[in-house]
């Protein structure tokens, strides 16, 4: 299977320093957040990689880096063998952008309320000069809407006439307009009710099967991730701590953080089960712990974990960044 997207040592640092005057008067240092800190992974064509983690772990930043909404501080993103950084600045950029699209979390904010659905879905077609003829546009928009389970007649309505799930389907139709190969989905169902979430997830899976789409799926919901993904990357404070095929990750989580996350999910099929108590919370990303960022919460931490940052080490098809796993302590 060929690799479609490859990410090497991706870093993104945000400057969150106080304003210059305040900094000078109060002698505050400059401050940086390492939102994404050395993330590497690859996604094969037609597969789904999910990134999970708690708020502030950098998963949405990775999504935005991939489609070029942010430029990386360091590292590279390769799409179909070509590095996207220089390409996005060249005249070839529209060609690349056509091949990857993004679906955002909030379907109430990502659709222009003053545009009709027809214009929203047709915008990428017009923008990329794929179709100009009005009649052809109308036919294509109808087709796209039908693909996501809406009616062609819905094209003349406004976004407010739709429910949350239907709006998210409009976003999907818009993303599909340019016939992309790669879709980046940033929490596409987090704002939706479960029954509606099921509709959207089913459509996304159907589309992948029919059109061979490749997905990067960002979510904090492990049950959803388990349902849609092939591979799962777990992030903690800007770093990947574990990257494994879905089955392996859920059957045999290795990193202590992954184990903790899995223990923490309330599951409807285990009524009355006592959970392992979870300790502590995600530290301030402005001042992350030394060594392994998880060590203050980790039951297996020792002196090495506090001092030395663990690298992602591949072993039996799974990549884990943990000294305890590497040393065979757990």
């Amino acid at each position, binding site marked *: 299977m060929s690799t479609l997207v490859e990410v090497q040592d991706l870093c993104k640092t945000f400057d969150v320093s106080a304003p210059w005057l305040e900094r000078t008067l109060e002698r505050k240092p400059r401050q940086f957040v390492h939102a994404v800190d050395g993330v590497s992974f690859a996604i094969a064509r037609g597969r789904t990689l999910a990134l999970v983690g708690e708020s502030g772990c950098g998963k949405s930043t990775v999504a935005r880096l991939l489609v070029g909404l942010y430029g990386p501080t360091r590292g590279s993103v390769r799409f179909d063998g070509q590095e996207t950084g220089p390409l996005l600045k060249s005249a070839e950029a529209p060609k690349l952008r056509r091949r990857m699209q993004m679906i955002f979390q909030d379907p109430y904010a990502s659709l222009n309320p003053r545009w009709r659905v027809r214009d929203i879905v047709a915008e990428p077609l017009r923008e990329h000069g794929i179709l100009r003829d009005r009649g052809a546009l109308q036919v294509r928009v109808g087709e796209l809407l039908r693909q996501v389970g809406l009616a062609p007649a819905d094209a003349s309505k406004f976004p407010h006439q739709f429910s*949350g799930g239907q709006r998210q389907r409009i976003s999907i139709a818009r993303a599909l307009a340019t016939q992309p190969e790669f879709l980046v989905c940033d929490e596409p169902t987090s704002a939706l009710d*479960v*029954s509606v979430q099921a*509709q959207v997830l089913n459509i996304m899976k159907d589309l992948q099967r029919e059109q061979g789409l490749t997905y990067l799926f960002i979510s904090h919901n492990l049950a959803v991730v388990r349902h849609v993904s092939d591979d799962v990357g777990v992030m903690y404070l800007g770093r990947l701590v574990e990257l494994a095929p879905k089955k392996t990750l859920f059957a045999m989580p290795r990193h202590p953080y992954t184990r903790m*996350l899995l223990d*923490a999910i*309330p599951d*409807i099929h285990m009524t009355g089960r006592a959970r392992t*108590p979870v300790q502590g*919370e995600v530290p301030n990303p402005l001042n992350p712990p030394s060594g392994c960022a998880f060590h203050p919460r980790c039951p297996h931490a020792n002196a090495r974990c506090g001092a030395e940052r663990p690298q992602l080490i591949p072993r039996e098809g799974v990549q884990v960044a943990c000294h305890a796993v590497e040393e065979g302590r757990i």
Partner: protein
Amino acid sequence: MKPLLEVKKLRVEFPTRHGTLLALDDISFTIAPGEILGVVGESGAGKSLTGAAIIGLLEPPGRIAAGQVLLDGRRIDELDADAMRKIRGKQIGAVFQDPLTSLNPLYTVGRQLVETIQTHLPLNAAQARERAIELLRQTGIPAPEARIDQYPHQFSGGMRQRVVIALALAAEPRLIVADEPTTALDVSIQAQIIALLRHLAREKGAAVMLVTHDMGVIAETCDRVAVMYAGRIAELGPVHEVIHAPAHPYSRGLMGSIPAMDEDRERLLQIDGAMPRLNAIPRGCAFNPRCPQVFERCRVERPELMPAGRTQAACWLHAGAGEVPR
């Protein structure tokens, strides 16, 4: 056990220019001391509204049009605003979704706690502070002696929600109404807050009404659960039965649409369509246009809650089933 909270035939209306909207209709349930009742449903089903009606915080022009709310046998739905305010805090504690908007950012956490404690309990400042520290400790805040003098912005989301819970518990209320207390939080923090709520019900005998859209949270926390749909209770019963053997087609669809952690399914069960708007609730059973098992009676006559196996369901499929002895 004698129920602490009794809601009987509660009906909430919103008068608008285009006629009166019936937001809650015929809601009846009870909660016993030490029991946790979960209320689930999708957005707009009326679950938060039920909580708001019970604690007397309905947003105008919403009003209780019929029915009764009894706390320990005494009607509280007819009380005026002042009397209700005394009950809230003293006898009913409320926890809302967003911990940041429930706290005053200009006051220290301690000052807010002490103020609440002194409003409801006859304690002097030093005793109240003592109690505030104790409450923070009970809700799992490390080093409460130091944290009490900090401001809400110095707390993280999970810690803030603990402070809000501590506030709700300040006067040892016997009923806690928690509206999506963990929705704004990460899973690892959510687990801690759930454990805390459960502890309060078990150890202190508090009755808890937990409103959430997360079935996982319900499964882990509650004793009984009410599934709401379009302003009515569709099913009410013990949590295990409602989750594993739901009697109402809507509950069945809802459970099937949740991706599970322990089984593989290519497709999720989906309920086509969406919940009707309040101004367009269909005749008969509100779920009938989306129901896979709909028949003639559903389109004409509205079902009441009726016994269906070990739960109660508002569904004509179970008409007559109640007479069968089990």
